[in-house]
């Protein structure tokens, strides 16, 4: 089965005063229908820019290049801006971190929902309203008719995020890119939204690219995960495998930093990975994680190869996992 989204060697580069900021350094992704792919990494690791790059929504100064960027059979690299506008919102949709600011405060929920639909489908205003109300019900909003007439400021954060999801799914896209969809919500609402996304995914066969820095969110909803560090994917594979036996030293560091109730003593300092992310301006020689890696050695001055373990598990490190583990 061809993946819904195929990304090969995606690069995003932004010219800055001191040189060229290589924010995304050639990442590969493949997401199949009905699958949730988690993209995790710390702030500035290039997660969001990768998503914007896929959508073609990068800031004007940023440059994008890729060996392959396909949505189903459509080659996104070959599309011009007009054609891209037709794809966005129709076959690929996106939801954002801040539900408080991602709806236009000047128009009612109904006006905003129907316009997305009417932008891509030939439907009458009445029919669009009908479909919008239906969609609101599907995302778990009661009395949708009332909500359609309301303005964004009359809705709570959780409701707004549901509206955003409804708006994103109105045209039944193949791929949904969710950029930190639950970060701004409190934990209860976060759980509801994640459950809702999973339900809708099952019902619609949706592929989801879930961008987050919250490993527990990935563990809960994603089937596959890619860990980003300094603009590169350092490890990718099935969530269960990666989390159970992380192969890359960075992933291992991340997992070790997650506090586990019962295992981590109360009052003990939270786990960290010593050091800072290297500057992304210019080329990075060798392994980007070298300076913070507990098992760094001479070979790390060269760019590590992408190693495979098992069927579809890959990571970028010179050391086989057993060796790295033993050295750490």
């Amino acid at each position, binding site marked *: 089965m061809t993946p819904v989204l195929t990304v090969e060697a995606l690069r995003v580069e932004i010219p800055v005063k001191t040189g060229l900021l290589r924010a995304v350094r050639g990442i590969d992704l493949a997401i199949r229908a009905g699958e949730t792919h988690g993209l995790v990494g710390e702030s500035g690791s290039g997660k969001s820019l990768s998503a914007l790059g896929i959508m073609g929504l990068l800031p004007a100064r940023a440059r994008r290049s890729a060996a392959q960027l396909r949505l189903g059979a459509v080659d996104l690299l070959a599309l011009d801006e007009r054609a891209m506008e037709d794809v*966005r919102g*129709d076959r690929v949709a996106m939801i954002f971190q801040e539900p408080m600011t991602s*709806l236009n405060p000047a128009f009612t929920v109904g006006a905003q929902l129907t316009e997305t639909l009417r932008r891509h489908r030939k439907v009458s205003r009445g029919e669009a309203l009908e479909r919008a109300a239906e969609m609101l019900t599907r995302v778990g909003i009661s009395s949708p008719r009332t909500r359609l007439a309301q303005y964004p400021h009359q809705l709570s954060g959780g409701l707004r995020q549901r509206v955003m999801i409804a708006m994103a799914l109105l045209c039944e896209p193949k791929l949904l890119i969710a950029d930190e969809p639950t970060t701004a919500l409190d934990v209860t609402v976060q759980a509801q939204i994640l459950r809702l996304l999973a339900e809708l995914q099952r019902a619609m066969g949706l592929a989801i690219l879930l961008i987050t820095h919250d490993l527990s969110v990935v563990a809960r909803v994603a089937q596959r995960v890619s860990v980003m560090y300094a603009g590169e994917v350092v490890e990718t594979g099935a969530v269960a495998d990666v989390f159970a036996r992380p192969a890359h030293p960075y992933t291992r560091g991340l997992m070790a930093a997650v506090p586990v109730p019962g295992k981590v003593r109360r009052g003990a300092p939270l786990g960290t990975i010593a050091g800072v992310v290297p500057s992304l301006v210019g080329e990075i020689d060798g392994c980007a994680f070298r300076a913070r890696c507990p098992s760094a050695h001479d070979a790390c001055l060269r760019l590590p190869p992408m190693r495979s373990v098992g069927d579809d598990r890959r990571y970028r490190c010179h050391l086989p996992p057993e060796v790295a583990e033993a050295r750490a």
Partner: protein
Amino acid sequence: MTDHALRSAFVLPRRLRNGGFVVGAAIVGCVIIAALVGPTLVPHDPFAQDLLNRLVPPMWMEGGSAAHVLGTDQVGRDYLARLVYGARISLLIGLSTVIVSGLIGTTLGVAGGFFGGRVDDVVTFIITCRLAVPLILVALAVVSIVGSSFFVVVMTLGLLLWERFAVVARATTAQVRNLDYVTAARAAGCSRGYILLREVLPNILNPLIVVATLEMALAILLEAALSFLGLGVPPPLPSWGLMIAEARDYMFFQAWVIVIPGLALLVFVLGINVLGDGLRDLLAPESRA
């Protein structure tokens, strides 16, 4: 009924609790009504001269009569009729100027704020150039070269008074541009033009409305100044500035001829400014629900 419910039953709508808004709206409303229906209510023609009844004082002064409530001017024209007709001129000048300058300024400002980079550099440069132009001097020069007419005055002022629109539109657009709902609209496949019209413009309208009131007051004052110098709307159109100019010679002995149009101008401009201030408080983002 609880105490709280009792009190809230008597709470006025927020709009009416803002003193500035109420006072300003009342003054501006009065002037608009006077301008619209006044000329039909006043029994005199603002252009009809009556040389036998020159400089009749207002009715409350000695020698005044009920026939001319505010008296007559130096050629015997009814002062109230001219004042009311002049309100029309002032309003029309103010509104037309604000429409012209608002269009220019908002277009430039939104373009600069939205597209940024080169476009913004050009817009900022144009704004700086405009700020370097001496307003009154250029207005005087243009009007004295082209000749004064209603159209020339409006276009001159409109082409000169847009910079505050541009500055405010540019700043607010740059803010709105980076908000998630604009990115969300792009992610939903909306084109740039659509985003400008539907996502950006409605959300920067409030501060622009406030700017419009201030610019309108300024335009009315400038028109009065031009008229006073004999370069505004041409006589015998009864502009308030022209009335002040024509009354200049009599101000020492018949002070009311200059006080009445002067007071009208003061109160109207003050009213617009107070209304603008009130609107700014009402429309301020932090007070919005």
